[in-house]
């Protein structure tokens, strides 16, 4: 999601984030594989469906931990600025897209795609900000 410096906090962040994404991949594959074969119902269906979201939420917590552990204030500032860009651009695009959807001018976009979009936009913003301060 973000370009980080090469220090202990950044390495912990990378390890945790990659672990969270590995769990996400596993849980998503499991849910996609199990649903059409076993047709779970009730609470089990809800638990299985929400399983891939948990590592994503974990990823957000991992970013928060990095912000708490990173001692380099400039790197924290870059991350916060890039996330503000990510939040602003993602909210703007999804709000505009939502109204276009209301009037049937564009196809529906699944809500789970919003987080990856936020990550991509934040990552792009982080690259630009780092280049600006280089």
């Amino acid at each position, binding site marked *: 999601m973000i370009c980080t*410096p090469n*220090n202990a906090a950044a390495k912990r962040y990378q390890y945790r984030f990659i672990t969270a994404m590995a769990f996400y991949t596993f849980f998503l594959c499991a849910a996609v594989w199990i649903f059409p074969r076993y047709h779970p119902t009730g609470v089990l269906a809800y638990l299985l469906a929400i399983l891939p979201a948990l590592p994503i939420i974990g990823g957000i917590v991992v970013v928060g931990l990095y912000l708490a552990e990173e*001692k*380099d*204030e*400039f*790197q924290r*500032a870059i991350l916060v600025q890039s996330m503000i860009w990510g939040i602003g651009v993602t909210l703007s695009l999804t709000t505009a897209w939502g109204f276009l959807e209301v009037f049937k001018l564009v196809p529906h976009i699944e809500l789970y795609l919003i987080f990856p979009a936020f990550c991509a936009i934040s990552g792009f913003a982080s690259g630009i900000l*780092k280049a*600006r*301060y*280089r």
Partner: protein
Amino acid sequence: MKNRLRVLRAERNWSQADLADRLEVSRQSVNAIETGKYDPSLPLAFKLARLFETPIEAIFSDEETGLAQ
């Protein structure tokens, strides 16, 4: 904010990476502060002052007051 970091570094023959190591920050952070693109927090400014054994005002100055020599 203006600063004399480049001069102070040169006096000690330190590279940006040397200063970054002493401050426990990244080289990009030192460069951003040195070029005036990023203003450090008070704790980091005090750390710089201790490192260079000089008052903060001798390192940093705002645009209005000018830099102390």
